[in-house]
Each structure stands twice: as C-alpha cells, then as structure tokens.
C-alpha cells in the first residue's frame, strides 16, 4: 500500500500540462536521446569537412584540362599537362601484377565497406532484441570488414606511391631550359600520373577517410568489448551500438561519395 501511495504522489505532476515539442527539460522533442542527437550534429559537421575536401577536388580538377584524344593523342599517357583518367591510374589488383584491371580493386573495397555497414545494422537490430550473442557476432564481422578495408587501402597507397615500372618522363622548363625527368610513383610534390595536385588530393581525401575508418574500428572494438563483458545487458539497452553504428554508416556514406567523385567520374 505504501508503495502505491508514493507512486501516486509522484505522478501528480501529470496534472501540469507539458508541451512535448519544446525544450524545457525532461522531454525529448526530437524523440532521440542526447547522445544520439549530438552524434547526428557531429556527423553534420564532419559532412562539411568532407564536402570541403571533395569540392576542392572538383575545383582543382575543373581548373585543369581533361584528356582529349584529338589534342593529346589517341592512346592515353600520363602527363602533367592534363588531369589523368582515374581508371588508368587505379588499374591494379594484388597478386595480379601487370594485368590491366581498371577499378576492380576499388570495387572490391566498396563492397567490403557496404557489407560491413550491413553487419553493423544487424548488430543494432540484435541490440534492440537484447540478443547479446548476435550483437557480439555482428560486431566481430563489422570489425573484420573495417580491418580488411584498411589493409586494402594500405596496399592501394603503397602501389600509388611506388608507381609503375616504366615511370613517366616529364619535360619541365628550368631556368629557361627544357629538362627531361622521369618520375616514378607519387609524393606530395611530384607524381607520375598527372599534375602534382592530383596526388595531393588523393593522399588528403583517402587519407582523411582512412583515418575515420581507423577510429571507427577502434570504437567498434570498444563496443564489442563492452557488449561481450555484459555491460550493456546490465544497463538494459544497447544504445551505444546505435551511436557508434551511426558513425560507421557515415564512414560508408563518405566512401560512396569518394568512390564516385574520385574513381568513377
């Protein structure tokens, strides 16, 4: 009886009418918790950062001529006079040396990331059902996907840095004389594929995205550890999986845009 009485005294507050759509404490007008809302706003700010990088790529690419078979010759060659065609730059696959396979490896990387995004939603879904075993299983798959993607990107970078066997001969005007130099691979000041800015943008954009994947993997490992030690079961909900899941999907979303604007277009 005593318990029911205190319960009643607590709920007398309901006589007062709260407007559920205004911020006045104790209500969630957007129907999401504080943490999730802040994750959304963080992701919006991160969207601006990535957009700035990708729009910069667009600006610099538009300021250079594209390769034109009529002006530059029928067969595509790397040159610092025009922007390279991406499928001629990214055409190698590990263990298949010397075979021209345009964009195949990037496609594999894209599918790895989309698939790890799917296992992440499956982990979130398992969290809603309070199914600890499934959360652990799908978090592990997500972590595996993230690590595979990072490994692929490391290979892609090292291939890009080392370049092709023949290199590219570039003629430059130095002190009024034409000097011929052969460049192998790429760094921040020169590259064999095209204008110096091409490699710079490659390193900055895929590097910044890769850093996000890396921190996403670290967060996923943390979530996996806490889920498998039973912290979230004790807490009564798996909302942390959802928050980190938002971040992980965002990383996948950015890759979708990088894939289109860096590799396809």
């Amino acid at each position, binding site marked *: 009886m005593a318990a029911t009485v205190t319960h009643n005294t607590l709920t007398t507050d309901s006589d007062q009418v709260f407007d559920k759509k205004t911020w006045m404490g104790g209500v969630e007008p957007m129907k999401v918790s504080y943490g999730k809302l802040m994750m959304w706003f963080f992701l919006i700010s991160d969207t601006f950062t990535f957009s700035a990088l990708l729009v910069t790529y667009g600006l610099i690419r538009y300021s250079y001529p594209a390769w034109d078979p009529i002006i530059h010759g029928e067969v595509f060659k790397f040159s610092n006079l025009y922007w390279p065609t991406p499928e001629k730059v990214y055409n190698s696959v590990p263990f298949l040396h010397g075979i021209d396979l345009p964009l195949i490896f990037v496609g594999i990387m894209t599918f790895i990331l989309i698939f790890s995004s799917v296992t992440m939603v499956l982990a979130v879904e398992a969290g809603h059902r309070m199914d600890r075993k499934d959360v652990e299983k799908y978090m592990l798959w997500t972590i595996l996907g993230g690590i595979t993607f990072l490994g692929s990107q490391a290979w892609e970078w090292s291939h890009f840095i080392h370049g092709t066997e023949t290199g590219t001969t570039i003629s430059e005007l130095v002190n009024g004389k034409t000097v011929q130099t052969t460049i192998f691979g790429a760094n921040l000041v020169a590259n064999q594929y095209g204008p110096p800015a091409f490699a710079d943008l490659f390193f900055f954009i895929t590097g910044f995205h890769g850093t996000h994947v890396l921190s996403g993997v670290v967060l996923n490992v943390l979530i996996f550890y806490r889920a498998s030690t039973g912290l979230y079961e004790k807490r009564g909900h798996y909302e942390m999986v959802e928050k980190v899941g938002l971040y992980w999907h965002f990383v996948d979303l950015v890759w*979708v845009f990088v894939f289109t604007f860096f590799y396809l277009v």
Partner: protein
Amino acid sequence: MSDDSHGTHEVREIPPANTGLIWRTFFILSAITAVEFTLAYFMKAGGFRTSIFVIMTLVKAFYIVGEFMHLKHEVKSLIWAIVVPIIFIVWLLIALITEGGSIFQLR
C-alpha cells in the same frame, strides 16, 4: 508478485530477428554499385555519364542515411535539422566549380 522480477535465474525470450528490410537495402545498394561499374566500362565519359553517376550516388546516400542510419523513421524536426544544412554544401559546390571553370579559362 515481486519475486518474479527479482529472480536471478530469469530466462528471457529473445524475439526472432527481423532483417528483411536490411537485406533489401543491401541488395539495392549492391545493384546500384554494379550498374555504376557497368556504366564506367561501357559508356563514354562525359557530362551525361557524370550526371547519371551523381544521381545514383544520391540514391545510394538516401538509402544509407534513410534506412541504415534510420533517419527516415525519425521525427520530422530531426530530419529537417539534418537535411537543411546540406544547402550550404550545394552552394559551395556551385561556387567553387564555377571558380574552377574560370581558372581553366585563365590558364
């Protein structure tokens, strides 16, 4: 009555997984990516192909944000709070692409 909720050896029923929508979204994303590949191989590069790629990318973004990130099923005010700031990106894109075009003219 209260003994039930305080039982230490409580066996909880785990409801079965409901993953139909997730796999459907995955199928759509994979199919669009596959079509993008086909176009990259068999279509001539140019403004038309680029605009197809941009539209397909936006469709993929819609499915990732809407279904995977669950934004489609959130409250309207949250949806707008996330979508409206994208206007700034559209502005930046138009401004800087135009700028890039005029730098090209000056080179």
